[in-house]
């Protein structure tokens, strides 16, 4: 177990390093944007004095590395600065929006992950049967449509034609859990359709890859049922690739929901980022990017650790 702990610490340190690099990249990218932020905020009619005063106030006259270090220092102490557009504290803005995004992501994941793995196992079990092909065709179709297309089709069918679900997913602050689940059903299903195929196909492929292994033949020759051969003998050895693809898709759920949030007018992080880009609210964009990057790194780290924890050859070294 000691080497597992050491490995987790190593990966964490690497993650922090990656985040640091990401922060440099984000800051650099924002620096490269053309135009003057103070000018943008104040509009074309502003006088030179007011622009100069705002530049002074925002610290825009300092050299880039000083501003970067100031920003990094703030971030490390939990202070992302203030929004340029409305002057609100970014931390509190992020916190409320992040809750929305996490809720939707968790909702979609709770449906998609079990569904994908079950379908993947079934497809592997009935490999090359009609069922397998059907699942493959359906999942391929689902993955081939862009998510905004799926979203609008769902909206059209289930909201406009038959008013079963609301078209606006924002559930306000007073909603019960049932209400929340009901209101966010359409965006959640859109996300499920998009990510299930990927995970399901990986699960199937990872298991089918193992079916030629001698230990699978051995399991069959022990007279075990096909279901047991797959679940007990193939699945545990296929976990590492499955865990990795699940982690990637979970990260996508958090970071890639921008379009779905916009379509369903859902006040998550993605929507916040899109709005901030539109208003040139650079400090908020920076903060959003950093949060997305952290989520990505954290989920990948978790996937690595779980992959090792589920492999006895790595977990129990030596005799």
């Amino acid at each position, binding site marked *: 177990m000691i080497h597992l702990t050491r490995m987790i610490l190593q990966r964490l340190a690497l993650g922090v390093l990656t985040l640091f690099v990401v922060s440099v990249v984000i800051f650099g990218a924002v620096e490269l944007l053309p135009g003057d932020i103070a000018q943008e905020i104040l509009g074309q009619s502003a006088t030179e004095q007011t622009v100069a005063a705002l530049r002074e106030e925002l610290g825009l006259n300092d050299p880039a590395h000083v501003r970067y270090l100031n920003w990094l220092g703030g971030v490390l102490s939990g202070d992302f600065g203030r929004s340029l557009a409305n002057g609100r504290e970014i931390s509190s803005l992020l916190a409320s929006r992040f809750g929305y995004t996490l809720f939707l992501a968790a909702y979609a994941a709770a449906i998609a992950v079990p569904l994908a793995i079950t379908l993947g196992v079934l497809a592997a079990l009935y490999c090359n049967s009609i069922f397998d092909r059907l699942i493959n065709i359906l999942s391929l179709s689902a993955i081939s449509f862009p998510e905004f297309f799926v979203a609008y089709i769902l909206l059209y069918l289930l909201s406009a034609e038959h008013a079963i679900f609301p078209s606006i997913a924002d559930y306000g602050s007073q909603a019960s859990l049932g209400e929340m689940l009901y209101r966010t059903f359409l965006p959640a299903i859109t996300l499920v359709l998009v990510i299930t195929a990927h995970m399901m196909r990986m699960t199937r492929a990872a298991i089918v890859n193992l079916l030629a292994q001698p230990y699978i033949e*051995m399991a069959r020759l*022990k007279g075990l049922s096909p279901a047991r051969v797959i679940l007990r003998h193939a699945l545990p050895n296929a976990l590492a690739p499955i865990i990795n693809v699940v982690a990637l898709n979970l990260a996508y759920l958090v970071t890639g929901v921008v379009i779905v949030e916009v379509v369903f007018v859902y006040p998550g992080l993605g929507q916040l980022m899109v709005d901030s880009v539109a208003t040139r609210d650079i400090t908020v964009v920076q903060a959003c990017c950093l949060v997305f990057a952290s989520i990505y790194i954290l989920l990948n780290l978790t996937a690595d650790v779980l992959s090792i924890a589920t492999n006895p*050859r790595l977990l129990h070294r030596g005799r």
Partner: protein
Amino acid sequence: MPTLEKPELQTPAQDTPLLRIRNLTIEAQTGDQWIQIVHGIDLDLDRGEIVGLIGESGAGKSTVGLAAMGFARQGCRITQGTVEFDGTDLLALSEAARRAYRGKRIAYVAQSAAASFNPAHRLIDQYVEGPLRHGLQSRREAEFSAKALFARLRLPEPDVIGFRYPHQVSGGQLQRAITAMAMSCKPELIVFDEPTTALDVTTQIEVLTTIRDVVRDLGTAAIYITHDLAVVAQMADRIKVLLRGEHVEEAPTREMLANPQEDYTKSLWAVRSFQTDAKAAPPDHVVPTIRVEDISASYRPGQMVLEDISFCVPKGQTVAIVGESGSGKSTVARAITGLLPPLSGRVLLDGEPLPPRLKDRSKDQLRRIQMIYQMPDTALNPKQTIRDVVGRPIRFYRGLTGKALDDEVRALLSAIELEPDVYLDRRMPQLSGGQKQRVGIARALAAEPDFLICDEITSALDQLVAEGILRLLDRVQSDLGLACAFITHDLATVRAIADHVLVMQKGRIVEQGPKADVLTPPHHEYTELLLSSVPEMDPDWLDRTIAEREERGIGISDGSAAEAAAPDDPAAALQPSDS
């Protein structure tokens, strides 16, 4: 296959054989076509009887063995015939009904236990699966009987070894554990599919003994599949010879050994006849092609893989390096070639010291030492034609191009007895195992080397094919006056081709000398153990050897001592496979 379900059990009549296979015909899929690979085999087996199935690879031994369980591998199908087990035709049953037989009444022991145990589960969990799923025992009972059986198969620490994962147990121990697993449901028939082929001779003799004792004690019938005649002679009551899916002949073991009827069987029996005359060592003042002086090497600090290795390979002579897996014999090759620079000592090529590291050596020095590997499948690029494989070293080392290059490649192909017009543009996958190894030899010769290292080049080949390779190698060696180091674990090969023999154990040379001296008594203790572990054709060999060893107090060990390198040892994993 018909899927009508018949009543599962019929009253077993005492006079019906346990297994009665008639006209078994099996097809295999290649591309879109189904090709018959087993052509109407019959086989009878009485209760408690052991029949040996022998033949070369591709003879259909394993396919027939699996068919005895009503099982066909992916890409194979049983098209005709009956497999009656205890009066019930397994092929007429549904797949679910057949599962009730598999593992419970007919069990299987695979060639590679290391690959056949699931790496994700502990041994005990895999052992109890059969008895539990077939509803024979509770978990507690099954664990209890597992420990008893582990002890009976002489596994070390039988009470706790089951709680290890497969990677934590050595190869010989795994092979015994898988035999235990096959016996977990007390089956009436066990199919042993080359159960000792992957093991060292010293481990093999121990596993053979335990398998035979347990099978005899429990009165289990067995089909014993192997390509090794000497092994089957120890194990089987009766031998059946197969060739390309067809029956050749069948007779009780002693009769078969004493008086084989068919030409093919006779050729199998005669296979170990090839032997070169050992050449005398040259006088001391002649500089040998390769001189290795006091080499030590290690893969990680503090753990020596080679210590104080010294030997010479004179021009035109063959030095055989023998030892078990983990003895460091392949590491010697890596040290000489510079892949693993030695920590101390030096290698001299024609009296000139070689730089220890591969990248410090000149192109000419590289050219003069060439290697041939055990597995041409992995050593040679499957995407390249033979022209490319053999032509590349000629171009690289000797700078020939165009017509000169083409002529040279053709000459080499003729030398390895492959017709250039037929084979020049074939790719590796279109060749047989023996042909691939011939190409491996041609590739090495293409550089016009002075010193050739052959690392287990015949281990993966059938005996007849291997003999062809050895004859070829012997011919080119005497034609070109090459110095050769021949790394092998097979003492029959050593007998055939060596002039000088070097016996290694745990990274050290325990004995070396001219072949006649090393292979005739008195031996070093370890050489004696190696030599006496090589099975002989005599059916009484195993009994006799065990009796002799018990007399001298050597006894059967648990196999842990014989296997120096732990399978999970990263250093061992870095080494090229020895087996």
